[in-house]
């Protein structure tokens, strides 16, 4: 079903006109309300009046995650705090979180976008949906929750961490849809198979996102659980989940162009890529009030097509993501930058700053091991002291990353040093 046919099926000309009008208003708003953008535009000799339609978008400066860090916590907010009704936060590249805010209207537009995604997956008010993304500062849980309520479905706010309870309720309640990371869904499928409960479930659709996955994973999920699995994309800086999602035809993710303008750029030259060419996705929010962002560099690599989809929707489609243009890792749906680990380890004086991250996938769940070197001057000959040290490092890292971590102490000077950029990450996950 198409949730908002008027908006999702507009002609390309109408989309262009709507985007241009909304862009003009948005640029005018940020110029007057956000010092950061006013200064950036002034440096480029730009005034709001210079932005007439979406062709002028390329004149505008980019925004990066570092800009959010530098203006932490609320420097990019375009409304007074009295208008902000919600805060979410995600990992920054170092110790500081990336903080975003929402006005009541922003929450409305978010739940509109997520309702579109769910409707696109055939979910409606007669469905019971388990939201098994984390609830809290992470946008996944509450984003899907509000969207599903807006749709009128029955929402079961499972959050993460208790697979047994999730399965019991899935069977007992006759749950028909689930929203979670694709790797977690595969894990759920395995537990269902092991316990013999797989025959008792009534799932028909799954909304999977927050981490990269492949067509093969989709096929595996669909055949094991006998349901249809859909891909949802989003990032807290722009909105949270619901920026884009795929339809029944699985031919790319529709970007909700009445709210976001996508561009694809070459991450080296920053020049626009041609339609179909892979580059970095850049998004401009044109309706967000609390924290509107101009040309936000997502660092996600993809390509775009503006061809009308067989499903009838006209919004541009981005292909499955092909990776990142930075070193961010997505582990169990949580964004992790190696630089965060480095910053956290500096707090622990007993270890050297040399570390190695080993990311793996065991039983369909991501694991993160952090190897750190034992420094001779802090080496204790008592196992309990070393175990205390391991626990201390573990606590510091878990607090910094928001993710459980296995810490392994290794012998001094065994972590590879290299002349140039050190190899800090071994990602053993094979996405096939």
């Amino acid at each position, binding site marked *: 079903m198409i949730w908002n046919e008027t908006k999702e099926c507009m002609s390309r000309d109408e989309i262009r006109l709507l985007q241009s009008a909304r862009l003009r208003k948005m640029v005018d708003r940020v110029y007057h309300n956000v010092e950061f953008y006013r200064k950036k535009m002034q440096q480029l000799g730009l005034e709001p009046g210079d932005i007439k339609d979406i062709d002028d978008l390329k004149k505008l400066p980019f925004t990066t995650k570092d800009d959010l860090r530098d203006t932490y916590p609320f420097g990019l907010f375009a409304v007074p705090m009295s208008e902000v009704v919600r805060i979410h936060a995600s990992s920054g590249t170092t110790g500081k979180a990336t903080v975003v805010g929402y006005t009541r209207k922003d929450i409305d537009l978010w739940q509109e976008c997520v309702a579109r995604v769910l409707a696109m997956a055939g979910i409606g008010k007669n469905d019971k949906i388990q939201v098994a993304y984390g609830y809290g500062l992470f946008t996944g849980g509450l984003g899907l929750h509000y969207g599903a309520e807006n749709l009128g479905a029955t929402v079961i706010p499972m959050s993460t961490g208790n697979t047994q309870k999730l399965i019991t309720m899935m069977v007992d309640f006759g749950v028909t849809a689930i929203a979670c990371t694709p790797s977690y869904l595969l894990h759920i499928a395995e537990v269902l198979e092991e316990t013999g409960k797989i025959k008792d479930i009534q799932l028909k659709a799954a909304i999977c996102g927050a981490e990269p996955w492949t067509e093969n994973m989709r096929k595996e999920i669909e055949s094991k659980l006998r349901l249809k699995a859909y891909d949802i994309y989003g990032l807290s800086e722009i909105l949270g989940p619901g920026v884009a999602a795929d339809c029944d035809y699985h031919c790319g993710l529709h970007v909700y162009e009445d709210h976001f303008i996508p561009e694809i750029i070459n991450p080296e030259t920053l020049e626009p890529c041609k339609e179909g060419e892979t580059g970095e996705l850049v998004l401009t929010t044109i309706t967000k009030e609390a924290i509107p962002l101009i040309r936000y560099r997502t660092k996600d690599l993809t390509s775009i097509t503006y061809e009308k989809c067989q499903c009838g929707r006209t919004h541009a489609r981005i292909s499955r993501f092909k990776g990142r243009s930075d070193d961010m890792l997505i582990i169990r749906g949580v964004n992790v930058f190696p630089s965060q680990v480095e910053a956290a380890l500096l707090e622990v004086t007993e270890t050297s700053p040399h570390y190695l991250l080993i990311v793996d996938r065991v039983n369909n769940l991501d694991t993160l091991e952090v190897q750190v070197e034992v420094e001779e001057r802090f*080496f204790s000959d008592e196992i309990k002291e070393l175990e205390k040290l391991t626990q201390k490092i573990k606590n510091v890292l878990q607090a910094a990353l928001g993710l459980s971590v296995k810490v392994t102490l290794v*012998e001094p000077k065994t972590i590879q040093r290299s002349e140039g950029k050190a190899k800090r990450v071994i990602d053993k996950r094979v996405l096939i």
Partner: protein
Amino acid sequence: MIKQLSVFVQNEIGSLASVTSVLKKHMINLRAIASFDTPEFAILRIVVDQPEKAKELLSENGFAVKMSEAVAVELEDKPGELDGMLHVIADAGIGINYIYSIVLRNGKAPLIILNTDDLSKTSRVLKEKGYIVAEQEDLIT
């Protein structure tokens, strides 16, 4: 009191041999060896004839090494000897962290090596009860 070396080693194949090969190369004689392992790593504790030299060599070879003192007590090779000594320590209110032994000593009595909460008190109470507490020099052949 004697000197022991503790070496941090990862719990993987060949890691102990990498320590002993450094010692062998420089003709350092091992008097006692014990390893205490966890799933991830182990601490190898050794008593050698030249502890300072061994520490320097192992550090140069990239190992985390710590030199510390331990109490070494002579025990006769007969039933109940260890039990008697352990009671002396327990009665003095001293906690034992770990214990290992040197058995072969060219005809001399076996040595039990102890690490406790209070090394000098341990050594003192044992001497008071007539135990022979060895010094580093006693370990040189």
